[in-house]
């Protein structure tokens, strides 16, 4: 018998959004504080201090840390054995609508051409079927400043060595517009849309997880560019580079770079049957 109810999902979505919008995750706050310890550029230091103060103030006031409350991006892992007798996506939608009124969130959703209609219609839900009887809901509200600076390229299979340069160029071209220090999510392989999804998942990885050699090298090279916090100069351009891989066609090499601003908002909950 199902113990997960529709009402529960609606309320949990409101809670998740509230947490994500108001409280900067501990690992991100701690990465900003570490950056302040090593950063010597005076302007960069003013930016990092302001970010840390902002995170504390948002938490104290219980208000969203950034006016761009973002696109609510959901990743939902549904266990095969979880019994759900209601429309899960519609319940999430209702949770977003409720959160928009209660927190509140800015109305960001518009028609792409007419630019009209600003209700927060749900814009991105990714459902996966997994083993077990649990349902894990993750929300990552995505601001447009960094999302707009993301890029995807379909490389030739012989161009593996060009991947690094593509990532570096994407970060350099974004400059201060993506609100650095950023998290760089890279998706290598899969299909056209698959690479983008891998990159977006890569952004979700916590900053206290160790990076591999390739990721570490890329991080060092990005930070050597000197863009710094908000692109005003300094040694802290990125906090992490996270790469996810997927199998791809023998004739393909899709690479996607998803950029996440320093306000890396995310929250998760696991519901049990």
């Amino acid at each position, binding site marked *: 018998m199902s113990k997960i109810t529709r009402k529960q999902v609606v309320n949990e979505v409101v809670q998740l959004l509230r947490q994500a919008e108001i409280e900067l995750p501990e690992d991100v706050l701690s990465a900003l504080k570490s950056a302040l310890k090593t950063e010597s550029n005076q302007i960069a230091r003013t930016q990092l201090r302001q970010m840390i103060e902002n995170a504390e103030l948002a938490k104290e006031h219980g208000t969203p840390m950034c006016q*761009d409350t973002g696109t609510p991006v959901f990743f939902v892992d549904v266990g095969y054995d979880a019994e759900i007798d209601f429309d899960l996506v519609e319940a999430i939608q209702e949770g977003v609508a409720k959160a928009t009124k209660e927190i509140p969130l800015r109305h960001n959703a518009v028609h792409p051409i007419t630019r009209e209609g600003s209700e927060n219609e749900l814009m991105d839900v990714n459902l996966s079927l997994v083993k077990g009887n649990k349902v894990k809901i993750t929300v990552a509200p995505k601001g447009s400043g960094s999302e707009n600076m993301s890029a995807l390229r379909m490389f030739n299979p012989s161009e593996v060595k060009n991947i690094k340069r593509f990532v570096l160029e994407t970060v*350099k071209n974004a400059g201060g517009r993506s609100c650095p220090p950023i998290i760089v999510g890279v998706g290598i392989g899969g299909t056209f849309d698959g690479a983008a999804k891998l990159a977006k998942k890569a952004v979700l990885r916590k900053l206290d997880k160790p990076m591999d050699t390739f990721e570490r090298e890329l991080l060092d090279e990005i930070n050597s560019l000197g863009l710094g916090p908000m692109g005003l100069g300094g040694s802290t351009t990125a906090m992490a580079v996270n790469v996810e891989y997927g199998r791809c066609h023998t004739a393909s090499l899709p690479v996607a770079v998803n950029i996440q601003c*320093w306000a890396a908002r995310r929250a998760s909950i696991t519901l049990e049957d």
Partner: protein
Amino acid sequence: MEYQLTTPLSANDVIKLVAGDVVYLNGIIITARDKAHERLLQWSGEGKKIPFELKGATIYHCGPLMRKNTALAAGPTTSARMSKMTTELLKRFEIRVIIGKGGMNITEVLRDKCVYLTYTGGCGSTAAKQIKRVVGNYWTDLGMAESVWVLEVENFGPLIVATDAQDNDLFDEVQKKADQQMKKFK
């Protein structure tokens, strides 16, 4: 250098600022993003009266999150989207300060008359705290984020002078150094 400035500002007030200086602003700032810029150009082109004062004004690239007349989060939005429209805007109005984030690449347009300052991106809460009062809200048909909010601020900052009125642009300097560094990577 660190400055405390109070609006409205004259050309003389702003041309002394040098890229890298820190500014705290007091007085009135006017939010405008994509749609408000479009309308400013359209209305002034048609000779219609703009319902708020732009002489000596400070434009803030911001789409705030408001609850009635209280700012909950009001950090800057990406200024580059407004670069082209700003070139025309500065020909028509005596705007002295533009606040945003990420840079605009309009050094020549600002020369001898206007400066571009940056507020730290993502800092919606600190900015909201420095907003003391909503003086007016215009063009409300554009919605909460795109309408024009005339705001009274106190110690608004720290603002970094990113582009001064003498052709210095921090973003440009940083990009040039990054371009040099890129040459090291094959």
